[in-house]
């Protein structure tokens, strides 16, 4: 018996007290509860919310590890201490322990802070309101370190996480009730509160900020950043696909994000409808812009030229687009909830991502704003989808009475 019995005794002891939710959260982390069914179905399927959230985390782990390598790689590459990758995805220059260790030390505090602060807020709210500690933050807490620049100050992250969890989620009543994706709320807060930190060419490579202005200055421009200023791309397509480029920690490797996305689709946790339609939406918008350029409406003098002229399918590889549509747009709570709505919702996310990307040179990452925008409109989309079902029922009734 041992631990199991002791925990059971403690649970009985705390039952009904203010401490119960906090204790329960730790207890159910170790053991799935001994609850049995009372009314309704006497058996239940094996998945619960913890398992669902855990699958998403598993899909995120490869991008996290890659991000650790990439942090070190970009840092040492910018300093000129190592050579650029030469041998495809498994290049020795990239997968070195030095790179990993450097990134690990930089990223671990971000993860600890993200989970520590976020779960802390959750525990406090659960204790005050007397509900269970819900699992939603397990994924949010993993997403947050992956979508911030590496050089973000810790205090900034703390402020943003508190804001995101309280305003983005708890004020609505917790997981399942929120309107906006909490991870993106955190990112959007950072973006609007500290714009100089979250954009520009300094924050994407570790060490760039403190060296700025000195003789050792290094540039850590993202691809989107250079394109927005209509500068030529200095990364190859394979670099962009594999992810050997500067950017937010987890967003660079399109390859690993695709693998994560396929895993989510296979396990039926992520919605393939949203992912596929978002890709279609982005391609359509990118193609429209390409046509505009081809028709000489926008010429190379325009400040939109750089991103508009980008081959439409290459939009999928750069920036946080892939990460956004695989891990953020598919959030079931803030996304569209009907299957038909998901097609519309995903398409519009892809469409607006590229639109915002092209027309917002100051901050050319459109996917964040596109998803937040569609989060707001998802209930409206669902409303019209559901209304069509209602109308069909009314029609059946009319056909009958007529």
């Amino acid at each position, binding site marked *: 018996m041992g631990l199991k019995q002791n925990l059971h005794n403690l649970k009985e002891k705390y039952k009904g007290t203010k401490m119960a939710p906090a204790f329960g959260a730790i207890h159910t982390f170790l053991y799935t509860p001994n609850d049995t069914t009372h009314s309704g179905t006497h058996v239940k399927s094996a998945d619960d919310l913890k398992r669902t959230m855990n699958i998403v985390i598993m899909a995120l782990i490869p991008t996290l590890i890659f991000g650790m390598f990439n942090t070190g790689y970009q840092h040492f590459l910018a300093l000129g201490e190592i050579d650029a990758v030469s041998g495809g995805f498994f290049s020795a220059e990239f997968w070195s322990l030095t790179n990993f260790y450097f990134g690990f030390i930089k990223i671990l505090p971000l993860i600890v802070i993200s989970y520590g602060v976020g779960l802390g807020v959750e525990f406090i709210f659960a204790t005050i309101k007397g509900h269970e500690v819900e699992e939603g933050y397990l994924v949010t807490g993993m997403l947050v370190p992956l979508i911030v620049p590496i050089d973000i100050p810790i205090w900034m992250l703390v402020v943003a996480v508190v804001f995101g969890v309280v305003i983005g989620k708890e004020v609505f009543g917790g*997981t399942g009730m929120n309107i906006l994706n909490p991870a993106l709320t955190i990112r959007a807060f950072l973006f609007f509160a500290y714009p100089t930190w979250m954009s520009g060419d300094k924050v994407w490579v570790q060490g760039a900020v403190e060296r700025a202005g000195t003789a050792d200055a290094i540039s850590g421009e993202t691809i989107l950043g250079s394109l927005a200023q209509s500068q030529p791309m200095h990364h190859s397509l394979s670099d962009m696909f594999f992810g050997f480029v500067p950017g937010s920690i987890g967003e660079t490797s399109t390859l690993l994000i695709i693998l994560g996305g396929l895993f989510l689709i296979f396990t039926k946790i992520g919605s393939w409808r949203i992912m596929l339609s978002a890709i279609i939406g982005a391609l359509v918008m990118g193609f429209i812009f390409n046509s505009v350029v081809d028709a000489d409406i926008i010429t190379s003098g325009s400040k939109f030229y750089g991103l508009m002229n980008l081959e439409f399918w290459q939009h999928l590889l750069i920036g946080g687009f892939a990460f956004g549509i695989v891990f953020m747009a598919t959030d079931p709570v803030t996304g569209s909830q009907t299957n038909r709505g998901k097609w519309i919702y995903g398409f519009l996310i892809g469409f607006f991502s590229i639109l915002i990307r092209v027309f917002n040179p100051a901050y050319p990452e459109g996917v964040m704003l596109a998803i937040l925008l569609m989060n707001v409109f998802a209930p409206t989309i669902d409303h019209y989808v559901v209304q069509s079902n209602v109308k069909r029922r009314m029609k059946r009734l009319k056909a009958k009475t007529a």
Partner: protein
Amino acid sequence: MSTDIRIKKGLDIKLVGEADQTTTKLPLSSVYAIKPENFHGITPKLLAKEKTEVKAGEALFYSKADERILFPSPVSGEVVEVVRGAKRKILEIKILADTSQKYQDFGKKDVSKMTPEEIKTHLLASGCWPFIKRRPYDILAKPDETPKAIFVSAYGSAPLAADYGYVLNGKDAELQAAVTALNKLTTGKVHVCANGNSLFTSLNDVEFHKISGPHPAGNVSTQIAKIDPINKGEVVWVVSPQDLVVIGELLLTGKFNAQRIVALTGSQFSSPKYVTALPGIKIKDVVTDNLKSGNHRIISGNVLSGDKVNEEGYLGYYDNQITAIPEGDDYELFGWLVPVFNKISTSRALIFSWMFPNKKYDLNTNTNGEHRAFVVTGAYEEVFPLEIYPMQLLKSCLYKDLDEMEALGAYEVAPEDFALTEFICTSKQPHQQIIREGLDLMIEEIG
């Protein structure tokens, strides 16, 4: 004429403990009990006080809302106890059975010569009326209504359900008499759905439909939606095949004989099989010597929508199945994290039931997680064949928006239709209870 219906969406929950096709005749039990709560929404008014002698078929109580609806005793004997709960609500009426059964004689009838009104009066008087349920709302039929159709599902698709082909074997004459009678009560037809060949194909006065596909293909709502969907203001009646046999026998012989073949199913029976029993029989008298040792849950009905009973409980009035499965009141270390091979899921979240579609599982009653708000979307639709948005309807029931419930199709559903969505619900929400309460609210507010 026959039409084929194929259901694609759904889920067959395959469990260990299917009943062997052998039937044991049980001796008459000593005490039987009728529970008014088996008849949803009925306020009982007692007719047979304690110490009264009743014959099989004689009324024990009637419905306060309509005193023509009588609820009969399944056995002859003496009413020994009326168990009451809070506010003197009648919970159980216990009858000590006689050693030899005496039947109330309702007289033999020739159905073909009876008028609809005569049939109605006869069914009401003989206590057969409670066998007829109505949609919307899934409650007892009202005698003054004329349904647009009557539906009988002869396909038990629920987990380990009794095989109707087996239990109805040889009951052709009774079924024919019953459907002929019911056919006169509706302006439409009597629709019967079965999976594959069924003795209903040879009966007159029925419209036979062949239905195939996973559960809930055998649920009447699924069949109604495919054949003749319910619109606002329309009424459909529903009778189960076993109850048709009782009605048929009453018409043919004049005796109310509620005897049915009950399937004993589930992993906790040492020999799962069929037995003959009367409704209201004490569970202990049925399961005795057949249960394995250990901590188990006994269910009157199937695992999805049956009632929890214990050995001192009684078989539900409509149930033709008793299921025994292990209780799951134990903790599981990192149960949310480890790969799962011994449980079922529609997702593939490290749960490998998708790899073994034909494996039979021994599920227990553990909830496998805690109750949460609705989070996951798109999963319910995979097991829900009706053209209804299940989560939206559930939510409208929760926030009690009557207009929305009506618009989203609440007239077309019964709680049992939400059993599968409840089974797969990641947030462990009590769907059937939510729908039942929603429908009750509609009865109260709309009627």
